[in-house]
């Protein structure tokens, strides 16, 4: 039972924060504002981009790495999608594929430099963060790129507006849907495949993993590639949501993503963490921010509270019994 609690601390945290949000929700015309469907949508939609980044980040952190470039890659991908659709008259599918491929390649390159040259991931992705931001500004010509829809040249196909529409058929916010699919696939990848055993093994003890025949470099490179791919996906979602490719967008998003992973119970030294935990961590921050805003808590106090939650989550991990996997 104790093991259970620690393993999924963020889920319990999420449930607690959710209940607290219901209790402290402002009431208008006899209805709880927090539980208003439009509000819940807003929470999930707003956290989806960070959530997608955080899922990728989970893998990197599991192998004992870190990826500081994801926020910049998000900005780069949003610019890329906008430029390809609006200025280069790409169709939706080619544009999306090109941007995803660019994110994947960017991530793989960071993985290669990290694994093969043995430079710390922190340094490599710190450089990657600057490079991606520079590319975003260069590619966009230093200006945000507006996405207008229509059939005329210089306009994005209507199909992309469907992707970016807030809700799919008025039911599910599309970013939430994408986030759910990404998280689902990632959770499966981390539970049933040999890849998953390799990831945990490397994070647990890289030397031992190498000695027991785990292809350490290859797994590391793939993990960074996956993280870059998901950052690009988040950027595409971002562009669709805002009808805009912003060269400065996504700055600091990497820290939000890392926060979600840490609150989700992962250890920054690697080997410990789950996708479910990360998803719960991301939603926890989203719900917390929402209920604080609904109650008009000052934004500086909000930062303070979320900071304390991160410390508390990390502190709980320290108390965790060593035997718990």
């Amino acid at each position, binding site marked *: 039972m104790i093991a*259970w609690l620690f393993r999924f601390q963020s889920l319990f945290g999420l449930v607690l924060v959710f209940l607290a949000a219901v209790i402290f929700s402002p009431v208008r015309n006899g209805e709880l504002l927090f539980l208003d469907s439009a509000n819940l949508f807003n929470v999930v939609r707003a956290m989806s981009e960070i959530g997608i980044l955080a899922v990728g980040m989970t893998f990197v952190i599991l192998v004992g790495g870190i990826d500081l470039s994801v926020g910049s890659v998000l900005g780069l991908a949003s610019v890329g999608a906008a430029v390809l659709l609006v200025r280069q008259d790409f169709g939706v599918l080619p544009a999306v594929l090109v941007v995803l491929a660019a994110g994947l390649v960017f991530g793989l390159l960071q993985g290669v430099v990290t694994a093969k040259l043995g430079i710390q991931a922190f340094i490599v992705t710190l450089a990657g963060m600057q490079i991606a931001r520079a590319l975003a500004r260069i590619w966009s010509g230093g200006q*945000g790129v507006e*996405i207008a829809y229509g059939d005329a040249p210089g306009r994005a196909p209507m199909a992309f507006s469907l992707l970016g529409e807030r809700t799919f058929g008025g039911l599910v916010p599309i970013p939430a849907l994408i986030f759910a699919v990404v998280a689902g696939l990632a959770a499966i990848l981390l539970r049933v495949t040999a890849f998953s055993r390799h990831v945990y093994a490397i994070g647990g003890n890289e030397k031992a993993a190498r000695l027991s025949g785990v292809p350490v470099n290859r797994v590391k490179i793939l993990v960074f590639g996956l993280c870059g791919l998901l950052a690009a996906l988040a950027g595409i979602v971002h562009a669709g949501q805002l009808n805009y490719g912003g060269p400065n967008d996504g700055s600091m998003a990497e820290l939000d993503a890392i926060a979600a992973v840490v609150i989700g119970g992962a250890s920054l030294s690697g080997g410990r963490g789950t996708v479910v935990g990360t998803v719960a961590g991301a939603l926890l921050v989203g719900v917390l921010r929402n209920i604080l805003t*609904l109650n008009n808590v000052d934004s500086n106090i909000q930062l303070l509270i979320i900071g304390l939650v991160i410390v508390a989550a990390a502190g709980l991990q320290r108390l965790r019994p060593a035997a718990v996997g």
Partner: protein
Amino acid sequence: MPKRARGAFSLLLGVTLVATVASACGTTSENAGGPAEPKPCGGAGGKYTIGVSQANVAEPYRERMDADIRKAAAGVPQFTVNFADAQQDNSKQVEQVENFLTQQIDLLIISPNEATPLTSVVKKAYERGVPVLVLDRKVNGDSFTSFIGADNFDIGRRAGEFVAQTLLPGGGKVAELKGLAGSSPAKERSDGFKLGIGGKNIEIVASADGDWLRDRGRQQADALLKGTPGIQVVYAHNDPMGEGAYLAAQDAGLTGIKIVGIDGLPIEAGGIKAVEAGRLAATFVYPTGGKEAVEAARKILVDCQQVPKVQGLAIERVTPDNAAEVYARLNAGG
């Protein structure tokens, strides 16, 4: 045990998602949109909540904007004002406006981080009948009640004309310290300046991005002044970068360099005081519009009146001659 636990949690997560989806069904009618139906005006007897969505409060200019709104709103007993800070993040600002709509605010004052990303959520608010006052930076289209702000292009042009007429009447060399690359005021203040100095034998010999920040401004100006000899005037897109350029010029021992800034905040650490102290040759007041926005809100909610769709705010040139007077005037009264 852990396996079963995971199953249980997957189930829980699934239930949460399904619940979200199910509850969404009730809102489809709301999503249909429809024409704006302004709420009936409550008049002087009502109580009103105003949501202020600020792009970020890290810059002194925007801090002052919030302060101006707070101060003016304190004079209207019917008003309660809630502030949100988007920390320069478009997505976050969209989320915060949505939160305001959930709270059913009576009026929205928004200073958008960027125009395009905020357009649709502003439109959504407007179409729900919430009056929207857009401050300082615009949104696209015309789905808002009133735009209140000065013109960045125009303020750049005025700065250019000042340099051409007063500082370098015989022509000369200028360095430009730009705001954050990719932000619209940086582009407009730059384009306007070029028009202002046009045809006057003035050359922009060097330029760099100072990201609106004093320390970046200092660092970049340091490089520009060392790298390009003969610079006579530094044009900074805002006063903090101008102050940075002043420090860099001091370091380099270049006392003859004139610095022109923009914003002219009437605070101790602001541009007007810097002009008074002789660090800046001039600045141009880019009014925050906070007071005017609260005035417009009062007209709409309390007096049940219409307000003009666009309210341009006057730009004012501040030189050592009038700095003390402008400072006193802008801080006088409510």
